């Protein structure tokens, strides 16, 4: 069965849909966590610490977090590899362009492909910035995420990268959520409006929620 799924365009799309939904779920949790920053350094840092102790005493310190990280890495890789392979296939299936071009024809496809690439690059930067601190702008301190976040959003490029990426996330989710529903066969004519509304709401909510943090830093609400 796994072979059937992986060898088929429909199957690969299913992989993309499922991995995408996993990441979407994570994003929702991530965004809710982020908003704690508005309640001060204490609560935010405490939340960050709690993430490492979830599941104790059944789980050891950071086990749950690593489990989540593994699931996420698998999801990202599955999503990206499927996307890459499907895109290659798509481009091969339409090798020559029409002389008379219509821009709208590839709007969704382009948004997803370029948006996906932007997001992949963002994730790398984001991890190096706030998880490992490798490219962090201020003095990165493990266990002090509040200050680290404030540092990042005190630079013009940190804000720019983040804002662009969050808009890309919004657009990606907007088409991706609805698209995943179609791929998984839950869309129908009667449900179409509800699905599109949900997709738009999710996209808006996540973009707004994530952008609240840099906006908070820039306006001085968070400092």
């Amino acid at each position, binding site marked *: *069965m796994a072979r*059937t*799924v992986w*060898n*088929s*365009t*429909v*199957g*690969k*799309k*299913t992989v993309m849909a499922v991995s995408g939904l996993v990441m979407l779920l994570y994003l929702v949790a991530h965004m809710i966590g982020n908003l704690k920053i508005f309640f001060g350094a204490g609560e935010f840092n405490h939340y960050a610490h709690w993430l490492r102790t979830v599941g104790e005493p059944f789980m050891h310190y950071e086990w749950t977090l690593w489990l989540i990280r593994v699931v996420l890495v698998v999801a990202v890789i599955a999503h990206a590899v499927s996307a890459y392979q*499907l895109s290659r*296939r*798509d*481009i*091969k*299936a*339409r*090798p*020559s*362009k*029409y*002389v*008379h*071009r*219509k821009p709208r*024809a*590839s*709007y*969704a*496809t382009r948004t*997803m492909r370029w948006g996906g690439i932007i997001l992949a690059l963002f994730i790398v930067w984001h991890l190096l910035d706030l998880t490992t601190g490798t490219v962090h702008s201020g003095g990165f301190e493990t266990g002090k995420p509040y200050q680290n976040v404030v540092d990042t959003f005190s630079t013009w490029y940190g804000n720019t990268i983040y804002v662009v990426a969050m808009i890309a996330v919004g657009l990606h989710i907007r*088409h991706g959520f*609805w*698209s995943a*529903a*179609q*791929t*998984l*066969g*839950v*869309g*129908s*004519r009667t449900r*179409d409006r509800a699905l599109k509304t949900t997709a738009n709401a999710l996209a808006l909510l996540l973009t707004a929620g994530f952008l609240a943090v840099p906006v908070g830093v820039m306006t001085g609400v968070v400092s």
Partner: protein
Amino acid sequence: MKLTLRVWRQKNADADGAMSTYEVDGISPDMSFLEMLDTLNEELILSGEDPVAFDHDCREGICGACSLVINGDAHGPERTTTCQLHMRSFADGDTIDVEPWRASAFPVVKDLVVDRSAFDRIIEAGGYITAPTGSAPEAHATPVPKPDADFAFEHAECIGCGACVAACPNGAAMLFTSAKINHLNVLPQGAPERETRVLDMVAQMDEEGFGGCTLAGECATACPKGIPLTSITGMNKEWLRATRKAGRR
């Protein structure tokens, strides 16, 4: 009406193609697009030039032979087949670009004619109900609820023209394939082959080199018969169901 046509000319499958420009005059708004091309061809023949090759047959919008991309739109600006597009949809003095379907699974045969035999092979892979002549039970033995019959009909309307592939940014044949799967899989008569049908047809579709679906929706917009985009959703659902069932066996 006087028009400038820019038409894709390509001698055969192996030759390189390019757009050529032609002027046509005395075009009536009541002419169909193909009658306008007939007019051009009559002039080309008399002037000793090779007339423009294009596929056409019934000229009433049902055989699915005609297949032109007009100003970047499969079948042109109206939601219909090229043969049912009339010149009143254009303005005097317009420049019109005419190109063949473009997809690697639809190689150009000559000028505006492409090879769509990949569609036939998708149907051969499972787009039928096995009912050898003479084996049929009485027609009323199995009533079919009207909504199911209507659903089947709506998808069975596909004329196999390939506009969906031509319009798709990925050259995908999902709408064509899903239309047939939905038509047959909803009917009680189609139930015994429900799983093999969808698995085999999708596999053949991939085999032919069509792209995948990114749900851009261009296929459904271009479809002259109005096959809905949800048709693809239905196929995905059938495919997942069949894959799960096959996995359990």
